[in-house]
């Protein structure tokens, strides 16, 4: 079979590897998911923040030959693609200092999770190699790689996040987007129930205190995932009324304290 004339130089290859794998048996959605995920990794795109890969960083397929599960990809930003893909390799192999995993690198985790799902669907692995070193992959993702990464880098807990509701709702899953001070990208949250999502929708563009389950990148305490279990909007409002209500609830007991300075000091001993 003759090779098609190349009109673009290959930057890297994506190889789907599995026992007895034949390209004709791979569902297209699996191929699409794998190449989309690698495109995100190569371009540095955050799939939650950016709808599409910028035009100047788009990946294209070249030399797709019948009978192979090797997809040669051309990048319009080849240098950046190679740097980003090398970084992914270092993170997966544990060579990258976990303390340096920051918000910028965190956006690589969702595409890696997708590639793990593709590897699981294939019963094999996804390899990405530079065009000039096709036998020496930059990285290889197997079905357990994302969970291994998670256990190394993530910590689960519960916390309160204060932010402004920008979006709320969803079709198949309830979601909410919060603008959180100090965070350059919006925090895209899962929402525990439709009822809470509906309540959130009634508070669009308002500041809330959301309580829920969190997954942190523990080296930087960057929030990777957050599921809203509930939220509130406590406000002082009329300070005189608030103080009266607090006194009525029990705070007036402090009036009887004979040496206030001494007592306040004792609180911390």
């Amino acid at each position: 079979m003759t090779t098609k004339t190349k009109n673009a130089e290959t930057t890297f290859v994506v190889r789907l590897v599995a026992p007895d794998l034949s390209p004709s048996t791979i569902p297209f959605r699996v191929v699409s998911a794998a190449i989309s995920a690698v495109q995100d990794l190569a371009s540095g795109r955050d799939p939650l923040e950016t709808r599409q890969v910028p035009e100047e960083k788009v990946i294209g397929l070249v030399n797709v030959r019948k009978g192979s599960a090797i997809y040669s990809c051309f990048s319009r930003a080849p240098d950046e693609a190679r740097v980003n893909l090398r970084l992914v390799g270092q993170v997966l192999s544990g060579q990258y200092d976990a303390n340096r995993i920051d918000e910028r690198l965190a956006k690589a985790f969702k595409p890696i999770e997708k590639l793990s799902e593709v590897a699981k669907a294939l019963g094999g692995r996804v390899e990405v190699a530079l065009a000039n070193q096709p036998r020496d992959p930059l990285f290889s993702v197997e079905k357990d790689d994302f969970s291994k990464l998670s256990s190394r880098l993530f910590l689960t807990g519960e916390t309160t996040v204060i932010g402004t509701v920008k979006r709320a709702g969803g079709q198949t899953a309830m979601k909410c987007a919060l603008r959180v001070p100090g965070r350059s990208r919006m925090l895209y949250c899962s929402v525990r129930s439709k009822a809470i999502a509906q309540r959130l929708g009634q508070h669009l563009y308002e500041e809330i205190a959301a309580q829920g389950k969190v997954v942190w990148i523990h080296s930087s305490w960057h929030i990777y995932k957050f599921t809203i279990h509930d939220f509130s909007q406590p406000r002082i409002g009329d300070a005189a009324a608030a103080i009266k209500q607090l006194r009525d609830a029990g705070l007036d007991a402090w009036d009887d304290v004979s040496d206030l300075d001494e007592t306040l000091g004792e609180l911390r001993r």
Partner: protein
Amino acid sequence: MIVGIDSNVVILAGLVPKTAEDSAEQQALARRAKILLHDLRNHLVVLPMIAVSEVLVKVPASKHGATIDKLKQLFVCSDFSEEAASIAASLWGQHKNLPADQKYDERIVMLADAKIVASAKATGATMFYSHNRDCRTLAGLIMTAKDLPSGSEELFIDQMLSEGLEDRPKGTVKPKRRRSKKSGY
């Protein structure tokens, strides 16, 4: 901006001194604390749950639930999370590098303050109010730390604090002094 407050802000704001002896000083502090709460009335304000336990110290046990419930309607009473634990531990280390005259006399006191400040920080606070100098010094290591305000620019602040916000005229900020016009030729 997200603001955190210490327990003494709430305790002082709710105070109506009984003895004439302490009355003047405590009334002044109560006024300053009330001014702060008035200034923050439309913000989400963090009062960490550890600080809530301090507010409850003199409240009868039978009224703890009601007081906590009211506090949670007014403030974000965040728990001591894993992130807060990490921040508190870091504050402990940073405290060692403070000049001797700024260090706590007792380490156990510092740890309590560290947990409160850390809880506020972990909830997103970038400013922290406390009437305790040592606590402000500690908080100042990781965010802006301030004492209770000394006054207010609002003209009718004392009436607002005693009677509430209803039926107040709209323009209540003190007018700036105008320079007199020079006479011209």
